[in-house]
């Protein structure tokens, strides 16, 4: 179980140079301006649950992961992993928690580049005190699950970036920690590899009851994997099951997207007062309209469309991505997806 209680982190503003007197004085003790990274983050994750932490760049996701690993000391509040404070009682959780810092490629330094995948994995297994026979069994299982069996004897350096990340993700399958923190684990992966990794994450939760915290930008990933998600940007914005959040925000009449295929020219002025977010383009002789509207305007849009030779209407369901954009009140985000009025 993982519990975050009022977890807060402020970083002091960076020092420009130790060679100027003012900065040196600041470094030696004068209080510096505080930059918030996390503010009163509260949540609880049950054993075997996959919990998503969703937030934009700079929301504090990596700070959270570093606190979980005792690499950053929180300003106030606590993060408990299986009842132990992640920083103050770090010794008691050593070996029981594992973190994959997927967004920071530097951490691939864990593996030796000129050594085979198998030897690298055996080395880590030995560090975690896993017996040789058990390690062999777990390595076989992990390589099989991640479709890496034919890469077993390859030097790590000869693998593609995606393959290397998969090897990194084989580690929790071998170590089988009680708690696993995945910091943007699929950030560099193609769609096929991403699905293999998703399977591995689901397997960890299902088979080994590993408590998993997943930080991601990929909302589709959160929808597929997470039992519950928390949307935050330094502070908590919303928390719940992905489906519930989508339904909740659907009820709040968030913008829904319609894709309309029709014949002939479109007068954008016809849609004035119904929506501002409209994009028109032609493809293969057809005109396509992409519009974002509120639920209330659905009738009006259908009335306007009676003047056109409509071939098809697709109503795209509200996704977690829409929820994310909505709760952050990022109109610019939606607009950037729609494009300028044409």
């Amino acid at each position, binding site marked *: 179980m993982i519990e975050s209680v009022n977890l807060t982190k402020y970083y002091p503003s960076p020092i420009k140079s*130790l060679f100027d007197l003012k900065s040196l004085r600041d470094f030696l003790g004068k209080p510096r301006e505080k930059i918030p990274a996390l503010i009163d983050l509260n949540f609880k994750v049950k054993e075997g649950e996959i919990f998503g932490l969703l937030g934009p760049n700079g929301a504090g996701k990596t700070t959270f992961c570093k606190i979980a690993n005792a690499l950053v000391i929180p300003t106030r509040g606590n993060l408990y992993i299986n009842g132990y404070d992640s920083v103050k009682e770090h010794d008691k*959780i050593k*070996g029981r928690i594992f*973190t994959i810092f997927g967004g920071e490629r530097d951490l691939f330094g864990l593996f030796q580049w000129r*050594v085979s995948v198998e*030897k690298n994995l055996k*080395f880590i297994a*030995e*560090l975690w005190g896993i017996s040789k026979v058990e390690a062999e069994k777990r390595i076989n299982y992990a390589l099989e699950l991640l479709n890496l069996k034919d890469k077993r004897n390859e030097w790590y350096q000869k693998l593609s970036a995606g393959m290397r990340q998969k090897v990194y993700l084989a580690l929790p399958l071998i170590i089988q920690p009680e708690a696993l923190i995945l910091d943007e684990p699929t950030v560099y992966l193609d769609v096929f590899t991403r699905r293999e990794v998703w399977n591995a994450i689901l397997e960890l939760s299902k088979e080994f009851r590993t408590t998993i915290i997943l930080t991601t930008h990929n909302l589709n990933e959160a929808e597929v994997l997470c039992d519950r998600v928390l949307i935050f940007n330094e502070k908590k914005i919303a928390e719940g099951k992905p489906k519930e959040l989508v339904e909740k925000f659907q009820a709040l009449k968030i913008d829904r997207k319609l894709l309309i295929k029709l014949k002939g020219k479109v007068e954008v002025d016809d849609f004035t007062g119904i929506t501002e977010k409209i994009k028109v383009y032609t493809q293969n002789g057809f005109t396509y309209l992409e519009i974002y509207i509120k639920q209330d305007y659905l009738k009006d849009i259908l009335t306007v469309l009676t003047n056109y030779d409509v071939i098809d209407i697709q109503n795209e369901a509200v996704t977690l991505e829409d929820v994310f954009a909505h709760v952050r009140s990022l109109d610019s985000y939606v607009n950037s997806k729609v494009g300028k009025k044409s």
Partner: protein
Amino acid sequence: MIKAFVFIQKEVFFSRRFDLLLQFISLGLNILFIGIFAKLITINANISQYGTPNYLDYLLIGSIIHNLVFLPRGSISSFVLGRIFPVLYNSPASLTAIFIGINAWRILWNLGLTLIITTIYVIFFGLTIHLNFGVVIVILSGVLLIFALDLFSAGFRIATKATQDPLNWFFNITAQLVSGLYFPPEALPKWLQPLSKIHPETYILQMGRLTMGGGYSLRQILPDLTNMLVITIVMLLLGYLMFSWGFNKAREN
């Protein structure tokens, strides 16, 4: 666990065959140049006071002692600032075991090289060495002192997030210039001699030459050794405090 580190580091090391070849070539050239240099140079100083019969022995023993005591230099910084640290910090292994493991292969390899160098010096350059308990204690206390300085330097680097290592760099460069590594300290200009007197490596080299070169016993060097041990203990304490401060400062900032 340390065995696992040694095994994987050995794999990496021997996978770079060309690097290995270059290392042996540079080692051979090094031995040759130092040997020739020592034979050609005449130093106007009383070499026998250092326990070595001639300048060749003075230089070669100095270089062996320097290589040995400097083995742990940079080991803590490279571990804590290295890319592997964040993951290993949460492994069930203790930090001490990981630290030893990470440096084990490098230290073993360099010990092996120093042994080869010493054998070559003895066979081809007629170097006379004495191996007694005093030699071991001097080298061990020297290693501890360098380790303490490295601990101090690592604390500074972690706190300031410096990519360079100015303290170790300063200590190493002054060690080569003023401690009597290549020539006796009295050959230095008068204004530089006080720096030689406060440099710990001066005393490490002096005691190392007396025991290894002159065959002095532990009892004969005890007063100087006691002074150095006191300095070492103080430096270890300071190093530990600096490292703890730096590590916590980095985690706060």
